[in-house]
């Protein structure tokens, strides 16, 4: 297949879709803004309305705009007007909203978010002036919310696969690696290792090689990997093929947790469409390069997101980490050289190749180029998935994008980078979103999750929940983590009950140090982080709880029921009978 033919074909379809003669309704349908709020019924109602009234309507299911709080969001492009956006749409109010506009040209003020286009309509606010949109800078998510996640032609019409075409036809593989190196792109999964350098480790080995894309994403508070796959899986696939070409790989796996149907189904659909159009398989775009991608599912296991555990899981075994060395670039999945990248890291690649590394470097900070995709949740007015330029302060993210803390409460803690990340205090608002700045402040940017916690929560209570998570999810392979996490949870729980003693703090420190030194993977090595960072800012809370005076009372109010194993019969079955 020839790229130019694909492109002109797609452009033609896009022009028909956007010329305004038939209303084009786009409905945001990711997990947060769509399916958890009834998007399927909304779509059914629109289809029914269109059939009953004999009105032709084009409907596309698109991805996330980032402003999850306003879900479900629809917009209509019609009659030469700009796109008109409404939020808080549900199966009940959708028909009135679109009917008034399509039939009578009346723009309902209820739930109106704004309009977006070259010429705005008088009396309708500018959609891009919404704080949740205005302060975003979208690179990886540039298509999200704008194109259908299940139509490859819409993706191609918006410059999709032009980065791949450029790489395959005008760049050697080491030029692609150098371009990514030069862009300063660092891994968005947690460790922030330079992506181009990682690729170069594998470039010289021969034979079967793998690109593994990690979308395990078990971090509570992070949903951006799943968000990308639900909103625009083609961007990820294009990035993976480019990574495959750069490293001389033959196969790719997209690794997703079983049960997350949205990301799974949409990625599989996108892969199929890519095969059908000669963008995957043998001789991609006539370049002679061949590459295959499939989806691999894992069971419920947080540690499966660790790189060597992930390889064990792809091989179909229990997801327990391997010892290193040998490193994945030499001995990866099935013993073959493998490179593991996070979904977000790979989603920048196509844009970097298309626009050049200097373009990418011009965004962000010296040490962290580009953007960060942060997930705001917790006690925040406008939770959402926002792509922001690196270098923006945590305060701006909380206040401008998140709309501050609701209910007249005060900010107390920020929990960033997943449960193993760290806790920051309210004095951290000046800290910039940047890998090194965040690390200096005692937390990590990690996968971009930021849980905002107000002054109703005791630091011990939050820590208990984080430690309980880490204990529950320890894979059990190495004892410093298996026993250490359990011991830490016992102590934190004791403190939370009001029965702790001051010596417990030094004991926890000792356990934490041993875990750091003796654990096989990051889960155990970083397992003490939630406690140490909480102690740094909120030792007072711990001491108060020890004397039975929880500063907020939340330790007493929220009694977590720690889950026990759900498999009572597993060990009663006689093996082999």
């Amino acid at each position, binding site marked *: 297949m020839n790229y130019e033919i694909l492109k002109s074909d797609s452009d033609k379809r896009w022009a028909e879709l956007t010329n305004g003669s038939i209303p084009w309704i786009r409905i945001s349908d990711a997990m947060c803004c769509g399916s958890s709020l009834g998007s399927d019924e909304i779509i059914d109602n629109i289809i029914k309305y269109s059939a009953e009234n004999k009105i032709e309507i084009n409907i596309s299911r698109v991805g996330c705009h980032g402003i*999850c709080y306003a879900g479900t969001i629809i917009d209509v492009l019609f009659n030469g007007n700009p796109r008109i956006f409404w939020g808080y749409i549900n199966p009940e109010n959708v028909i009135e909203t679109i009917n008034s506009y399509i039939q009578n040209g009346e723009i309902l003020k209820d739930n109106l978010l704004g309009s977006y286009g070259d010429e705005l309509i008088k009396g309708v606010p500018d959609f891009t002036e919404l704080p949740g949109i205005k302060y975003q800078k979208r690179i990886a998510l540039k298509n999200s919310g704008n194109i259908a996640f299940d139509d490859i032609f819409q993706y191609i019409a918006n410059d999709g696969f032009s980065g791949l075409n450029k790489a395959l036809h005008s760049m050697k593989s080491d030029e692609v690696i150098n371009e990514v190196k030069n862009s300063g792109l660092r891994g968005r999964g947690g460790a922030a290792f330079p992506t181009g350098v990682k690729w170069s480790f594998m470039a010289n080995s021969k034979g079967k090689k793998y690109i593994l894309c990690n979308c395990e994403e078990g971090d509570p508070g992070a949903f951006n990997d799943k968000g990308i796959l639900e909103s625009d899986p083609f961007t990820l696939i294009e990035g993976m093929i480019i990574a495959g070409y750069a490293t001389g790989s033959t196969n790719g796996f997209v690794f997703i947790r079983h049960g997350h149907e949205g990301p799974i189904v949409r990625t599989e659909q996108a892969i199929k469409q890519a095969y059908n159009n000669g963008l995957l398989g043998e001789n991609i775009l006539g370049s002679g390069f061949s590459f295959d991608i499939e989806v691999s599912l894992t069971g419920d*296991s947080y540690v499966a997101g660790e790189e060597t555990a992930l390889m064990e899981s792809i091989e*179909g075994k*229990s997801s327990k980490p391997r010892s290193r060395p040998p490193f994945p670039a030499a001995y990866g999945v099935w013993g073959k050289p493998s490179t593991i990248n996070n979904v977000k890291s790979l989603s920048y690649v196509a844009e970097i190749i298309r626009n050049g590394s200097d373009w990418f470097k011009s965004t962000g900070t010296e040490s962290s180029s580009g953007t960060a995709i942060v997930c705001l949740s917790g006690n925040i007015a406008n939770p959402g998935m926002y792509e922001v330029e690196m270098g923006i302060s945590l305060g701006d993210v909380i206040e401008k994008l998140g709309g501050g803390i609701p209910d007249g409460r005060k900010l107390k803690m920020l929990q960033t980078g997943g449960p193993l990340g760290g806790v920051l205090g309210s004095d951290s608002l000046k800290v910039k979103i940047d890998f090194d700045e965040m690390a200096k402040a005692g937390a990590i940017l990690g996968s971009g999750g930021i849980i905002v916690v107000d002054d109703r929560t005791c630091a011990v209570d939050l820590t208990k929940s984080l430690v309980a998570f880490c204990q529950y999810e320890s894979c059990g392979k190495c004892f410093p983590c298996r026993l250490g996490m359990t011991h830490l949870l016992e102590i934190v729980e004791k403190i939370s009950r009001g029965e702790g003693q001051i010596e417990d703090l030094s004991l926890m420190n000792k356990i934490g140090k041993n875990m750091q030194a003796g654990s096989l993977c990051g889960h155990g090595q970083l397992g003490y982080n939630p406690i140490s960072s909480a102690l740094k800012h909120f030792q007072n809370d711990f001491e108060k709880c020890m004397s039975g005076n929880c500063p907020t009372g939340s330790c007493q109010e*929220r009694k977590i029921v720690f889950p026990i194993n759900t498999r009572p019969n597993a060990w009663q079955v006689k093996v082999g009978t």
Partner: protein
Amino acid sequence: MLEKYTDDYILNIIENQHYKTRTMLSSLLTVQDDIGYLPKNSINVVADFMNVSTNDVWGVASFYLNFRFDPPGKYNVEICWGPTCHIGGASELQHTALEKLNLVNQGDTEDGKVSLKFNTCLGACPQAPLISVNHKLHGKMDVKKFSKILDKLN
């Protein structure tokens, strides 16, 4: 006890599995997706199919927390207890469910109708606290709404 699902039935499922790369894990996921749990004999069938020992397959099946070894209830209720849902009040939801379903921890109700599970993250944190019923998410949950949902399960 006679197995309801014969070896041939299970072999047929895993031979026709959707996954291109066939492993112990992909075969077990396929069986559970089809039947709802892993019947006793499925472990042996997967072992034969993959040419590995029964022990190996047990190892995988008992490691991942999503596998069950007895039929699930008609309703799968999951409550997220991850940190975001925790500060949103997930523990109250846990206690509500335990009280209404007469359970002491996650597990199946006595009549076998409801399987209750505590999940570490259901993945839609902006809508916290979250629960799901038969994999359909319900966000911004509170005790009142959740009680109503639980009352309707029968």
